């Protein structure tokens, strides 16, 4: 799978919007698996998705020189 330049920009903007989730900054009392705060899980999942985007961006933009 390769990202076009427009898709890469769109993916980065979407990640940026998801980072700015100031509407849900109020404490969420949910503990996932009974012990992990929701906010922490949300951020780690965000990093996981962003790593995927980094991989796709790199695959698309570095291909001509490798």
């Amino acid at each position, binding site marked *: 799978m390769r990202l076009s330049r427009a898709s890469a920009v769109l993916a*980065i903007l979407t*990640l940026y919007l998801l*980072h*700015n989730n*100031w509407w849900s*900054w*109020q*404490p*969420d*009392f949910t*503990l996932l698996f*009974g*012990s*992990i*705060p*929701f*906010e*922490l899980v*949300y*951020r*780690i999942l*965000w*990093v996981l998705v*962003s*790593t995927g*985007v*980094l*991989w796709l*961006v*790199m695959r698309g*933009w*570095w291909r*001509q*020189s*490798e």
Partner: protein
Amino acid sequence: MNSFVLLLVFGLYILTLVIIGVFSYRRGMESAEDYFMAGRSFGTFVLFMSLFGTNVTAFALIGMPGIAYHAGIGVFGYFGAIGAFVTPLSFILIGYPIWQLGKRHGYLTPAQMFGERWQSAAVSYLLFGLLLWYTIPYVIIGLMGGGIAIEALSGGAVPYALAAGIVAAVTVVYTSLGGMRGTAWTNVFQATIFLAFLIVACIGISAKLGGIKLLHTRLVSEAPQLLGNQHPRLTPGIWATGFLVGPASVIAFPHMFMRLMTARSPKALRRTIFVYPWGLVLLYVPITLIGVWGALDIPGLIGKESDKILPMLVERHLPIWLGAVGLAAILAAVMSSLDGQLLTISTMIAVDIFPHKAYKAGPRIGRLGVILLAAAALMVSLFRPAGIFDISVYAFSGYTLIVPVMAFGLFWKRSTATGILIGSILGHGLLAAYYLGLKYPTFGTFPVFPCLIIESAAVALGSLLTPPPAQEVIARFNHPFNLPDV
């Protein structure tokens, strides 16, 4: 803390650094390329640990838990998560072309590379001056941080001046001996220490406090505000532009810029970029949790008192020897950045000021530079200049303004030296004016945000109003992503 255990761990730590420095000196060759760039030979492991160790400062181990103590788990998103994306992204977009150009043309410093990009000595000297201006306070802060940490954690047994002197002397020994190779391998050792310490401390403290499940159930009932973001200064505008001051400016740190150019191959660089976000997660998750748990275990700390929450929890719940390792970890974070900064500034002085001598006498000039700089920084740090810690936000913002210069140089063929000079002077001038008291409207964002827009617009306008660069210059800096293999 038991002074024998402290001295033993501290001594072992310093001895290891010196041994690595001597070993690197024996292995290295007396050439500028080898001393300043380690022959551009680093594979994934050394490259990652070297970049990571250089990037992480004592703030992560001292300041961050203190902030999480008051503000809650939400700060992980602001300091950790966004950095885990933006910094590697800048490595992909800007770091990779820089690596290619460095490998192809033998560049050693940012001023050298971008001075040639626009065939302009003025651009080269401007970049040199700006990078020096923003980096030197960090060297002083690093020495002060090391001195304060040792004095505090040794219970005053090692006074501040002696502690700062020891940090400076040891860093000078292994940096001047080993050059880039020496500092990279010491960074491997140092990053291993502070990362391993944090993970062990996190597991140990949570076990002593009843386990993660109990701790977080207590959090819901006793301090639910810490489950979100409660930092009064993290408003939506600051949150939205926070990535500019820190994560996005990392690529413009001269010590990071130069380390990126030491990659052996695109494969090493690519793998490093994929590991990088998870290194930051491994660092910032324990740091955040320790800060928040500290609020449950030792409530009531006011303001900066919470900066000591990590050492307080370690002393209260973990064995003495681990406390001593904790001190070594803080020193590791201090020195792993300090060595990179010292080496980088000495490289810049050798290459950008004495370009004709740098390639012949580079290592000698570099060593002399490291010693003189460290001595000067130590002298200043002994006076503990007030307000120097406030300079850090200004310096980070200044680095941020150098990122567009790099981007214009790499991606906009039409950009000209005049445009870059006008834009840089306007942007950096406005930023300095803000911190000197001219409080222009920032619309709830970081002060650097308006400067960034004005700088970029001025570069664009100035470039379009001046004749385009010569074709052969543009060809030399051909669109980086289209460059063939090097």
